[in-house]
């Protein structure tokens, strides 16, 4: 059974330029203990989707217009964003790792204070026990000399180490789900490998689900078991990792995979096939499929009918497209 079930989520932003439909009918589920990938380019709504689940959308200008977020038998959307129920879940049962470890840590508080805060709040620990646990957590995420470094400030940590602290904070209260929003985009590739391996080991050991939100197809291919691909505020393809990468069925997913150079391809062996054009303006969304203007597989139906609903094309494999494209 799914641990978290998001259904028909719509999050809009009222801006001075018009209504931005950042997330427009997104449904996904997170199963127990799985690593899930949510991929898409900037502006596709992947971050807004998980921020909506966490009720971290600034209101106004944002607004969760519709949808359900079922977690543990409760609909999180019904709760006040800063109400007691939501605060008991956020940071405890569902936690988050942000992209930028420098801005997401408080620069004037020690690492110890930032780690112990949630322990005292959610697990009712006293100061001493919390600090001991904080040191233990830092050791778990591989911060060397943890007992001493726990009293340091964020600026005394390198980027990679800061992200380890963020991971320690995320696992501190034995969460059931961790959302990681571009967790390794700000770090170098060898540090990225260290952090991702660490996160994978931790969630396996703690039996936690991990949702990796990223634009990097390689990262999800390596770690995620299931993948959701987003475009212009919607999920356009979902399925098992092998299906998405070996047999992609949506023209956007196919285009995306053809447009990235693969490591090890001989120089000059293949010309990249870019997706021509630009993603649509979220204020003036077409009534049809939003990928239509860039699609090379379009048929007549695409121009007259609204954006198609997700349909099954295989076991656990869904696309939102009228066209059937066989093979890669």
């Amino acid at each position, binding site marked *: 059974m799914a641990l978290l079930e998001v259904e028909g989520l719509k999050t809009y932003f009222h801006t001075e330029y018009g209504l931005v439909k950042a997330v427009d009918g997104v449904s996904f589920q997170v199963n127990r203990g799985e690593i899930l990938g949510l991929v898409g380019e900037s502006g596709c709504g992947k971050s807004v989707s998980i921020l909506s689940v966490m009720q971290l959308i600034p209101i106004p200008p944002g607004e969760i217009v519709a949808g359900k977020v079922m977690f543990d038998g409760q609909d999180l959307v019904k709760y006040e964003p800063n109400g007691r129920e939501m605060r008991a879940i956020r940071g405890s049962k569902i936690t988050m790792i942000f992209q930028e470890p420098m801005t997401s840590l408080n620069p004037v508080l020690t690492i110890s204070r930032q780690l112990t805060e949630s322990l005292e709040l959610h697990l009712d620990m006293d100061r001493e026990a919390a600090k001991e646990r904080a040191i233990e957590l830092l050791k778990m995420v591989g911060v060397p000399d943890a007992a001493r470094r726990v009293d340091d400030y964020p600026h005394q940590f390198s980027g990679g180490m800061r992200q380890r602290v963020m991971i320690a904070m995320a696992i501190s209260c034995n969460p059931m789900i961790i959302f990681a929003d571009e967790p390794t985009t700000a770090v*170098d590739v060898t*540090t990225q490998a260290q952090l991702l391996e660490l996160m994978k080991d931790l969630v396996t050991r703690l039996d936690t689900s991990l949702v990796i939100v990223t634009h990097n197809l390689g*990262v999800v291919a*390596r770690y995620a078991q299931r993948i959701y691909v987003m475009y212009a505020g919607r999920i356009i393809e979902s399925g098992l990792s092998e299906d998405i990468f070996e047999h992609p069925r949506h023209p956007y997913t196919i285009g995306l995979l053809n*447009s990235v150079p693969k490591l*090890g391809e001989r*120089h000059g062996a293949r010309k990249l096939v*870019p997706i021509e054009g*630009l993603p649509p303006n979220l204020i003036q969304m077409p009534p049809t499929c939003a990928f239509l203007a860039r699609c090379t597989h379009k048929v007549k139906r695409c121009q007259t009918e609204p954006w198609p609903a997700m349909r099954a094309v295989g076991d656990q494999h869904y696309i939102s497209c009228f066209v059937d494209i066989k093979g890669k």
Partner: protein
Amino acid sequence: MMNVSQNDEILQVKDLKMYFPITRGLLRRKVGDIKAVDEVTFSIKKHETLGLVGESGCGKTTTGRCVLRLYQPTSGSIIFDGIDISKVPERKIKSHRRDMGAIFQDPFGSLNPRQSAGSIVGDPLKVHNMASDAELKDRVIELFRIVGLDPSMMDRVPHEFSGGQRQRIGIARALACSPSLIICDEPISALDVSIQAQIINLLEELQEKLGLTYLFIAHDLAVVQHISDRVAVMYLGRIMELTDSTELYENPLHPYTKALLSAIPIPDPVAERTRTRIVLKGEVPSPVNPPSGCHFHPRCSLAIKECAQVRPPLRDVGNGHYVSCIRV
């Protein structure tokens, strides 16, 4: 490869050093050096693309900036078109720089927000007195067409363009004076995945059409490998390995190159399962106080006592495959 005469080389960089002084106190007393580039040697042949890859802080950008003479190197020579431009006095550098173009990473920061696109592209021609007012407009129109921009958009300012279009403006500006060498410093890393391929393909087409030579600086090894004929891998101011781009992937020799390659996740879950991953321990040391001997030895699995004592030379192990390691 080896019988290429020296005349085919458009750029020869030899023992290039770029140290930035660290000063302290009121009198700005020098207390040390940041050894950003520490004796780097490479050359680029005409019509070739040399990739320069490494993690942040490895000195790849500084190397590029020295070649453009945006920095006055501490020592070493940069022979471009037969002239050592590192020795050319500041007031005479302009005429040499005309034959080089530069494309920068940030398509937002590298274009003047108040200047029209046409004027940005035409500026180099004015600076170098290469076109009369009448010729200028024709040349700018031509440049717009070359990079795939609609010349009717000439009077617009940068914010009216998308990220990919802005990078095209940057490329048009780099091409304005018909340079023979172009330094591309992370030209695509600020762009979205589906747009990256458009720019890579454009750079490849331009090279073919105009016979350009590229120094392509980037951190994404898959992209570098795709576009480059040869690749140099840098670590803490030094070149660790330099070889043909296919060879680099199929037969990497330096332990750092191996770790770097294995750290890069590739969008193929089936291949990912069988790949061996070398997760490096620790972090990149500071270039202020780099490790003795081989800069990589504290993190290297092959390191022996000598590695901490002697600086390994960049030696040819056959077929133009250079490696700086005493253990291979």
